[in-house]
């Protein structure tokens, strides 16, 4: 039996589970971690404070988009909801388009200014776009994470996001592999944002291919903030649930 091509295309584009529009759920294996965040646990239990620094090389949103809330905002509110009685501050530091070596130079200043107990570091995208040597990137990241740890901070790494429209233009996989090496060597969690978002894209939870602003931004960032908050709670062996 011959299936008309157009009908096949239609069937394929409509296939897949019709997930709830704002479902953040992903399989456990995408967000599992064996690493621990001892300094976070201690700070929450002893000082009832949690100072978080979110570091990324993403530029600030401009124009109409500048009022959109990003995952550091959601991370703060999600952590605050889980950690009643703890003062949670999340400070987002953007170093637009800077590579690992350029960001590394600012690290000691940022640490002495903010005294974070947790640094959530999103990295790898700029390096992938510029084609920086992945091996050298891994070594530089390893050294920077070691410096953060000896400065008294736990670290969570976040890799590049899943961006279906620019996926063919540069290859982030070698950088994620080096981040995984750093996460194992330094015993810190790696939040695999790429795989998490790819899962959302493939199951139809979110349409990640929109050309213009279609309102997905805050939903995706809300979910990322929530999943990172869950990861931090688990890795720091903290209890605290949120009713939804």
């Amino acid at each position: 039996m011959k299936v008309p091509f157009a009908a096949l295309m239609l069937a394929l584009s409509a296939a897949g589970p019709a997930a709830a529009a704002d479902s953040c759920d992903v399989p456990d294996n995408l967000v599992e971690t064996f690493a621990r965040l001892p300094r976070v646990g201690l700070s929450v239990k002893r000082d009832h404070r949690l100072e978080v620094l979110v570091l990324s090389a993403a530029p600030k949103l401009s124009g109409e988009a500048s009022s959109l809330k990003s995952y550091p905002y959601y991370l703060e509110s999600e952590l605050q909801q889980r950690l009643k009685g703890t003062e949670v501050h999340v400070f987002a530091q953007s170093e637009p388009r800077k590579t690992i070596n350029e960001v590394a130079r600012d690290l000691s200043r940022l640490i002495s200014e903010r005294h974070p107990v947790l640094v959530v570091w999103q990295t790898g995208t700029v390096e992938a776009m510029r084609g920086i040597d992945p091996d050298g990137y891994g070594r530089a990241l390893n050294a920077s994470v070691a410096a953060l740890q000896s400065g008294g901070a736990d670290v969570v790494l976040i890799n590049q996001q899943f961006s279906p429209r620019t996926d063919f233009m540069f290859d982030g996989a070698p950088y994620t592999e080096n981040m995984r090496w750093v996460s194992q060597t330094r015993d810190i969690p790696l939040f695999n944002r790429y795989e998490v978002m790819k899962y959302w894209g493939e199951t139809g939870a979110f349409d990640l291919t929109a050309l213009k602003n279609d309102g997905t931004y805050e939903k995706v960032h809300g979910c990322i903030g929530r999943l990172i908050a869950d990861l931090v709670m688990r890795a720091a062996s903290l209890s605290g649930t949120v009713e939804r």
Partner: protein
Amino acid sequence: MHSLPPAGRDLRLDFFRGLSLWFIFLDHVPSNVVAWFTVRNYGFCDASEVFVFISGYTAAFVYGRVMNERGFVIGAARILKRAWQIYVAFVFLLVFYFAEIAYVSGHFSNPLYTEEFGIFDFFQKPDVVLVEALMLRFLPANVDVLPLYIALMTFFPPVLWLMLRKPDLTLLLSIVFYFVAKTFDWNLVLYPYDHSWFFNPFAWQLLFVIGAWCALGGAQRTSPVLNSPPVIALCVVFLLLAAPLQLSWLFPSLSGRMPSWLMILPLDKTGLSGWRLAHFLALATLVIHYVPFDAKFLRSNWARPLILCGQNSLEIFCLGVFLSFSAHFVLTEISGLIPMQILVSAAGIAVMVTVAALMTWYKDVERRGGKPPPSATQEGLGRVTAS
């Protein structure tokens, strides 16, 4: 001067080059579920190693004969002509790549991807980017094995000249060069001058030269050693150990924490890490051992599509890169769901095979010049191309 192995097409080369071309295509379609079938997931090396090795093998086999029979100048001229063809193919692909980027950049303003917009910064200065790209100093992802091939072919004439006289010395020099380049971190610099070639030609030349050395008698001379039970057993053990290591690396949650003495991953692809090289050589040794020159399946119908692709490798490589761009376009514009990924993968391979079959058919027609087709026993023999 060493004698060359007997003429006649080694269909194993075509078969495995065809397979590597399929794998390269599947790996190049971004986030493609079908790419789980490719070699890179089950060991350290990937299809690039297969492609470079076989390219070195065929280049030595074809142009070694020409250089022996017609002298250095004619041989060198043929090699450089080939390098020029590869350059033209590279520029051809570049145009498609730039066209797709230009299309996306013109329509794309989703704030979710503000960071990824950085890739368009390069194209703010088209004058600079185009000139740098033509000088092989701006190399987009997915086509960067072609510039490596151009560089290797351009410097191949003197290598081949020496290889025809002193094959072992040439191999030794290549090994020394590999280690020196690694020690001193040599690589070619790329625009915008803070990074270098993804396939470091100073390192990858070793695999090309190993391929050439094998073609010019090295494989025959070492065959008693390579086919000895201890070596075969060693290769099997190495591959069996590498596969779970690579897989556990790809699925960290399944394996748990990796012991620190096993932390050899990720392996350096740019500088062709020794582990990758060793893995490829073990794989190649086993393939040569278990797949004889005259293996029956190489002449069977199901091997035909792969052999056809392998026999037209430059064209099919370029077509594969072009198809991976198109597949990406379909996956973002129509649907990126898993059934669609399988469909575009299958469709892409079908197109590759069809085009390869047409090209082989046309070459046959051209060569015969209207004469009747050769008898079945001669099919595929006495004709070796370096495509």
